[in-house]
């Protein structure tokens, strides 16, 4: 295995075009997963590529560069509609992991329990994929295709995550359920973003659920039920098992039973809605 500290995107594109490469940034999953042992693929470390770093405001939102760490997300002054990203960041592993791991890596890794996905789904994120042959934008929901599977081609890399602005008044929330306080993989987690119109009704809302299906999902039935409703505690009761459970396929694993996940999924979404209401008050 050759290890290259890549210096520019053009170098990265040229190397990826030749194939048999692994793109590395935070490496917090590459080491523990054993992917670096006994591989003949070349490692392309992109952490020194200046054009891939940073959180940059754009005309209609934000661009999160591929090497942006969770720490940078945690420290960024997000407006209320995107502030759930900082909540996610503060619950990824612990400080050491937050300093090293990247949001983009979390997406490319495509774990069912990837902490970033529910929030980014709720924010209608798109990913920018680049290669020597050009650039394409994919909605996040089309990018992650299954358990540890994405739509990225071997010659491509994830250049940035693009987030549309969330006009205020708005609120967002993230709820993670795990077995301990730090360094924990979710049993279930939910992300939510809500916008309110001038009459105090829900203008738009996005809710998503992670760790309860191969890929995190949006919850359109609840979103539809909430839209147009006046903001009040009664919204929580729109989150019903009938509207949540058909969207997910929970499994039994070392962290919890499938039956429990199905119940907990409903509750973490209720708690997410409750937090958003509280923040709007």
């Amino acid at each position, binding site marked *: 295995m050759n290890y290259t*500290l890549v210096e520019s995107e053009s170098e990265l594109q040229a190397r990826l075009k030749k194939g048999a490469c692994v793109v590395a940034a935070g490496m917090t999953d590459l080491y*523990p997963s054993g992917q670096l*042992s006994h591989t003949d693929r070349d490692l392309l470390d992109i952490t020194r590529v200046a054009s891939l770093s940073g959180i940059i405001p754009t005309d209609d939102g934000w661009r999160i560069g591929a090497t942006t760490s969770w720490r940078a997300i945690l420290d960024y002054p997000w407006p209320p509609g995107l502030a759930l990203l900082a909540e996610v960041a503060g619950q990824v*592993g612990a400080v*050491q992991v937050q300093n090293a791991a990247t949001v983009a890596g979390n997406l490319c890794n495509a774990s069912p329990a990837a902490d970033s996905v529910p929030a980014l789904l709720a924010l209608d994120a798109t990913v920018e994929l680049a290669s020597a042959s050009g650039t394409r934008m994919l909605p996040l929901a089309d990018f992650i295709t299954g358990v540890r599977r994405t739509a990225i081609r071997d010659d491509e890399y994830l250049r940035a995550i693009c987030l549309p602005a969330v006009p205020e008044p708005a609120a967002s929330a993230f709820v993670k359920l795990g077995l301990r306080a730090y360094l924990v993989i979710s*049993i279930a987690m939910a992300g939510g973003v809500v916008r309110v119109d001038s009459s105090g009704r829900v203008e738009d809302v996005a809710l998503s659920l992670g760790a309860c299906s191969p890929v995190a999902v949006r919850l359109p039935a609840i979103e539809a039920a909430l839209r147009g409703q006046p903001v009040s505690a009664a919204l929580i009761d729109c989150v019903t098992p009938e509207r949540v459970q058909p969207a997910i396929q929970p499994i039994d694993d*070392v962290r*919890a039973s499938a039956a429990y996940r199905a119940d907990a999924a409903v509750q973490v979404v209720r708690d997410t809605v409750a937090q958003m209401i509280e923040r709007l008050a």
Partner: protein
Amino acid sequence: MKIEFSLNGETLSCDGLSGAERLSSVLRERCGARDVKVGCEAGDCGACTVLIDGDAFNACIVSAAQAHGRSVETADGLHRGGDTDAQRVADAFHAHGAVQCGICFPGMLTSLVALKRRDRQPSESTVSDALGGVLCRCSGYRKLLDAAVAACGPDPLMPIETDGAVGDSVARVDGLSRITGAEAFGDDVAPPDALLLRLVRSPHAHADFALGDLAAWVETQPGVEMVLSAADIPGVNRFGVIPGFEDQPVFAETRVRFRGEAVAAVVGDHAVISALDLADFPVTWNPLTTSASMADARSSSAEALHPHAEDNVMCRGRVAKGDAETALARADIVKHGTFETGFVEHAYIEPEAGFASCDADRVSVFGCTQAPVMDQEALARILDLDTSQVRVVPTATGGGFGSKLDLSFQPYVALAAQRLKRAVRVCYTRQESMQSTTKRHPSRISLRVGATSDGQLCGFDFDGEFNTGAYASWGPTVANRVPVHASGPYAIDDYRAVTAGVYTHNPPAGAFRGFGVPQAAIAQELLFDELADALEMDPLAFRRQNALRDAVPTATGQQFASGVGIVACLDALAPHWRALNADAEAANRQSDSRYRRGVGLAAGWYGCGNTSLPNPSTMKSALRRDGRVVLHQGAVDIGQGANTVITQIFATALGCGVHAVTLESGDTDITPDGGKTSASRQTFVSGNAARLSGEALRQSILYALGAPDDATLAFEPDLIGARRGDAFWLFDPTALSPDNAGYLLSTEQSYDPPTSPLDANGQGEPYAQFGYAAHVVGLTVDTALGTVKLDRIVAAHDVGKAINPMLVEGQVHGGVAQGVGMALMESYLPGVSEDLHSYLIPTVGDIPPIESLIVEVPDAHGPYGAKGLGEHVLIPTAPAILNAIRRATGASLRSIPVTPDAILAALRGDTPSKE
């Protein structure tokens, strides 16, 4: 690849690296930074935390290439380099008694320095967030958190300089080096040219196997010096810790009986062996039907794991007194239940590691251990050497909790060194450590307990099966200890407790803080709570009424004329119990139905030392030619504090301060046997030997001085003397001739606790002393999610005499934390939870404030009245938590861990009763 970086301010350049080499490896192996401790190589434990450009990173999952051009700082580097934040934090950790084994502390120290650089006045929750990425298995985090907050405040506590007499909270004599990482652990001591050894392990729980042409394979592997297997063992390919139960092979011969069992070892150049892909190692496997559970192993179709146990029952234990069955029939109320617990992993942060060397016909093994002399004796049998030809030198041990009593890495490196006449080292990976070393026994316990309407216990019938895995290890001890202890610290006239240890195709279950007693206490303490409820009695009053007292016989008929401290523990807890209950009731009246508060109580006891067996410790002390007092302290300090506590006892007996004493370690060449660090015996047994040694050395010095018995000794840097009133006697070192060790005076003293054998009904005097404990837990259950938030724990412990109250509290906190983990999250599943992100232990955010109430009911035999403590601290925590959950919600739980799914299922199954 060549990288350049700054390490603790010094510019370094490393060439010929793979860019993907872990930074932890570069720092430790190429730069000599052995203060960077490695616990998991997966970013799960945080021990290896270093600062890169000032921020905290797990060095084990940062590539060497990523350090290029950066500034890297390590714990000892910061401390030695005069970083004021690091020194302030280290002093606070030291003064608060935060450190125990210390393997994780370099990670704690660097993490906190990173925080302090960003935030000069962090809150407690910010400090907690900063430390959340570093796992500690010893300390229970609370002293660490207090110390960290103090270090960030205006007035950090400094270590108190005292003589460290018995009763003083003197800071650990070896504390600072454990905090900064300067201390050398098992993987920190091998010479630079040592070869590396790796083990080939079974991927199957039960299989026959055949090794291929090993010699031919070695030929194809440049840099591999040798392969070892069962055929290479010159002595006996069996080991074990209990005479008559030595059933575990060093290398499996033709059949493996658990996943992770070693079949061969490869030895060679460090870089080659580290990078070696063992996938093509020449071995063929023939998987066989597995007895994964005790039920499988006891079924009529199950194959016997060992010829000496046809029915897979390794051994049985029994204690019986009176007539349990008749009493239960007579009782007004009988409660019964069947309780199950699973494998619990010790999860010390230091994996098994060490090295061996060989000169002429002598083999020396350096590394982590709890039992150097037992290691020495077992290695001699395996290597076919006389024990005098085997030297074991314990390094600092990064946590043990029972598992490092057994051999692990030692025979492999010893054998390789013996064959190659070269130094050979090994460090288990986290997965190897979890797969192959001992666990807490899973249990299945059926218990019936009766009481009469006046609240007296009336009949107790206990039947426990304990899953000992593939090999015996300490299984016989568990089978024998549990029936003695299953009563808890209560008086029960009509009592029967039987146990069986069952072989299964699992890792060997062995010693783990409590030897089966914590499992038994869950069954007993849960049913006692249910009995109290049925009797409409206060649970504390019910326990107090039935508690053992002086001169009241235990389940084995043993009577203690003095020193029975359980009533004193319950009385100390009583005001806390009442206050927490009042708070919980008030909160439950206020709140909606989702969050329910509950308070739970449980008690425990534990006999210190071996059960009805000889259990001596010997301590040698001396006066050196240069006037220093030397103590050969063979009671291995695995973090619990033996180096400090034994020294305090010795120094008090001698009449000097602890800082006048130079410690020699448990090196078997120079230090007599301090016995194993287990069974809460070191303060009691080794402490008594140290007391006797101190008293004897004092007598020798007084005699040499010609001073009377009641004179006071004085130890100054250049002067030793004795004083009484105005009279003074000055010691003349030239008047005595030194022995070979350079000692002018020396003495060896032993202590063996008085016990008597148990008869066929388990009646007799198994222990010379018991220690007593009771805990109260206040918690809140989220009944919608089944999650538990611990609010407060109050722990009362009768320690007879607290030799060092600060270290007593440290033991209490650490044991409580392990009890919390066992109750709420820990479950080892072979093949599933073999790392520290699948197997969860508590983090700093999971342990609530703990109040420790030290109760001192003097023991007739203990040094200055002291009793053991190490295991007592874990026993009441889990049952107290389960009792609190039931009081909060009505959920009656019968197995651990009580994860949220289990609690919610119990809530759905049971209608919460009104409490």
